[in-house]
């Protein structure tokens, strides 16, 4: 019931806002903020009730939906989905708070779109029926398409259509794979898919079909090109949701679908996946250095950081001696999870920072800025902190995930680890260089001197994000405790199917 209400409250609020229409600006804003806060509080209560030691999915609801095809409304969460749900419910109110300052046109539609998106995102993370999962997953394209297209920048139409077609193409292959699995097992429940009896060839094809969907979403190296466009053109809130949560769905999909269902396929292709991840980490990191648009730089840095997630998901499968190791597997998946959460916090903070600057000067070009800290000291300090955590400074959450994944890689192959760890240099290079040019240095033009320091509404989300990044960096243990049991079950499943 609790989980159901978390899923349904945002969409009811969005209906209300849609019916009230554009005449009630304040009221709409209040409804959106209030409902998203309620959802956040409810999700904290969910965390409180959650039993990390249970081996079952918790807060299950199971109802028949389309009986002819044995499709159920079947939801429930475990230690892998709960952190991502918390991330979603935490980020959405922050986006809604900031929408008041940076968004004027059709505010009610903007708020409604984000609330619908919240419902769909939580739905994705809590579906235990693959068909339901697909519906939430695919329906998300609609509000995101509208958000980028209506409230985006100059080149928004190109960007949003590209985003839509890329992700749509990816996910239809997943649909075929799901239908195929349905014929193999007679059910759409994900747990039944785990027991499907598939030959190696079938597993490879199903893995590739899933890879299309999740690889585009994460995004992985050759299919990443929609992301910089979408990020640059999206409004601040859109960029934040995109970076913080939508990208995480790809990683979640790997953990929930690809690895446990098509395990042998994953083992077979693990070398390929590792190469793609390393290309993303190193090459895309270098591409980020060359950017002169701040949002584009952060977008490329996102791809590079998400490369760590895919590395963590697949590196342990690539072991030269045939014995796959439970400990390494746990370590790598833990690393991937914590990297997702941490990237969700850091990248949304950076996008919010860029949004703050964009609202004032209406430019995202690095060369238009300089010496911002002299006029906006508070903001400058926060931005420097986020940049440092993006560069994986120890003590911030960015460090924990990358460190664990590199550690796990070392146990498999030193070369993979060494190549992955170059990101510590490259990442520091592009973020700190950007900060140097934007925040520090001399004031380049008179407009900078007119900048106003951030107000309370703008600083509140940034401070909250900074706190959580710091908390997660210094005390990651509660998060590990939350996840470890579910990850252990997942690892055992993967290892038993792989050997």
């Amino acid at each position, binding site marked *: 019931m609790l989980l159901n209400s978390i899923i349904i409250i945002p969409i009811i609020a969005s209906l209300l806002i849609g019916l009230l229409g554009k005449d009630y600006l304040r009221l709409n804003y209040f409804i959106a903020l209030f409902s998203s806060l309620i959802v956040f509080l409810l999700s904290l209560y969910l965390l409180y009730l959650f039993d990390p030691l249970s081996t079952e999915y918790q807060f299950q609801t199971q109802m028949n939906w389309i009986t002819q095809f044995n499709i159920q409304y079947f939801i429930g969460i475990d230690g892998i989905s709960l952190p991502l749900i918390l991330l979603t419910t935490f980020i959405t109110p922050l986006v809604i708070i900031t929408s008041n300052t940076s968004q004027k046109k059709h505010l009610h539609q903007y708020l409604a779109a984000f609330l619908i998106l919240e419902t769909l995102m939580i739905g994705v993370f809590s579906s235990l029926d693959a068909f339901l999962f697909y519906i939430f997953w695919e*329906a998300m394209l609609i509000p995101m398409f509208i958000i980028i*297209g*209506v409230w985006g920048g100059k080149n928004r139409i190109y960007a949003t259509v590209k985003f*839509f*077609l890329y992700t*749509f193409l990816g996910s239809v292959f997943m*649909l075929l794979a799901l239908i195929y699995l349905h014929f193999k097992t007679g059910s759409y429940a994900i747990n039944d898919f785990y027991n499907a009896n598939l030959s190696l060839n079938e597993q490879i094809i199903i893995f590739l079909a899933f890879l299309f969907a999740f690889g585009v979403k994460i995004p992985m190296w050759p299919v990443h090109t929609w992301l910089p466009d979408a990020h640059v053109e999206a409004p601040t809130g859109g960029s934040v949701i995109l970076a913080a949560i939508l990208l995480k769905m790809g990683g979640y999909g790997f953990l929930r679908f690809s690895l446990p269902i098509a395990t042998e396929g994953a083992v077979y292709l693990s070398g390929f996946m590792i190469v793609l991840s390393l290309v993303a980490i190193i090459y895309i990191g270098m591409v980020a250095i060359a950017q002169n648009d701040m949002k584009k730089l952060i977008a490329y840095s996102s791809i590079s950081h998400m490369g760590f997630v895919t590395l963590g998901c697949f590196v342990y499968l690539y072991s030269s001696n045939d014995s796959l190791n439970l400990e390494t597997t746990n370590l790598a998946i833990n690393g991937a999870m914590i990297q997702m959460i941490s990237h969700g916090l850091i990248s949304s903070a950076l996008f919010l920072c860029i949004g703050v600057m964009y609202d004032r000067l209406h430019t995202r070009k690095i060369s238009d800025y300089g010496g911002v800290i002299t006029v906006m000291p508070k903001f400058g300090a926060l931005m420097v902190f986020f940049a440092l955590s993006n560069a994986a400074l120890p003590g911030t959450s960015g460090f924990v995930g990358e460190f664990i994944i590199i550690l796990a890689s070392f146990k498999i192959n030193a070369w993979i680890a060494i190549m992955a760890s170059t990101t510590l240099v490259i990442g520091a290079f592009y973020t700190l260089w950007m900060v140097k040019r934007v925040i520090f240095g001399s004031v380049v033009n008179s407009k900078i001197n007119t900048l106003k320091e951030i107000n309370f509404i703008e600083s509140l989300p940034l401070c909250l994000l900074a706190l959580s990044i710091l908390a997660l960096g210094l005390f990651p243990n509660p998060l590990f405790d939350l996840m470890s049991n579910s990850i252990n079950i997942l690892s055992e499943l993967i290892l038993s199917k792989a050997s």
Partner: protein
Amino acid sequence: MSISELKLLAPEIIIASGICVLVLIKSIHSLRSINLLPVLIGALTPLVALLSMVSTFNNPYEIILNGQVVIDTLGSGLKITAYGFSILIILATNINQLNNKSELILIELFALLGISILCSASNLLVIYLGLETLALSLYGLVASNRKSVKSSEAAMKYFVLGSIASGLFLYGVSLIYGLYGSINILDFNNLSVDTSIELQIAIGFIICGIVFKFGAFPFHSWVPDSYQGSTNSVALFISTLPKIGAFALLYRLLIDSFYSLSSLWSLFLLILGIASLIFGNIVALSQNQIRRLLGYSAIGHIGFILIAISASNQIAIESSLIYLFIYIIMTLATFIALEVLSSDNKSIDTITDLKGLNNSHPWVALMLLFCMFSMIGIPPFIGFYAKWIVLSTLLNSEMIYAATIAIIITVIAAYYYLRIVWYMYFEKSDIPLMKNTSNLIQKSLLFTIGSSLLLLGLFPEKLISVISQLFDQIY
């Protein structure tokens, strides 16, 4: 002919009488000026016909009139669907827009009669009778926009091509008669598979006739022209109901009679289906005239239906009918939205006319957005289930290549639907659309059908089970 047989023919009789009443009204001077009367009769006739079927719907499979008419649940189901949709269509037709509306409604009733005959004919000549009744009314409908050159051109093209297709069909029928000495479709149930070349040619000709009615690939050229040439109200009709007739035609001929030759015709349908899927959707990418665009999109949708049928098993036929039904709802909603936006002197013709719709008519824009995403096949809209159920059928029948082609084309097709959405939402209008005078019935129909795209999408179980039940008698 007994009374009980007459009772089974009640819907056709009622429609024919409705037509007579309309003609009478037209000739009585004092009644001519009442605008609403023809609409009322036009909507009441199918309604009465529909109600007359309630008592006979669960009738057992029956062949009446010396084997010329067959009554089964599928035929009755198709008829009920056609009547139901025709009530909506006649109510949604813009009353203010056309002065000759009573003639329009008259012709539409004629077409409905043709569809009814097609649904329950079991004799090749009766089938031909229904086919021609339908075809001739459609020519008239396309030509009804007399002021437009495009309309006359489209009607002329349609007429010439349609006559050729009817001729081919009739030739196929005569070949069948020559081969077997019978024109009753129930006699062909148990043909042996070793087929002569004459039979193959005959089947080929008959498929030509069917495919023409659907407007699928090599016989598609009338579709975009006639959509573009006609008004939105006429396009609303010709894009929806005749497809039910075409489905009935296909069902009676290929499933009911020549099913034993399915290995022969399924390949035909598969190739034509894939060709129209690719052709319709690719050409639609570059269209700006909105009805023309929807015409090409219809060709693509029909491709989907034909591919599904080519799997030629029970689930395949069911899923193709589900697809057809969903396609009709989506098309209906789209055209009604265009009708609502069209005012007396300004009709929505190109995509650019929709610019900035979100500012001037946010709710209509939302409904059109539902239609477009539903047509792409994005859940939770009902269009997704149409695509999904056909893909399920294809994978189930091990037609993985057809399924792969279908989904890739679906993604390509998404582009032109997205274009409509982006014109409505992302662009600013040069000349804002005026608040128009469309009536309340139209608007409420739009919102009911539009939101049903979403509601049916959330609860599709009932729709799927009702349509599958229609096939219970056959298998």
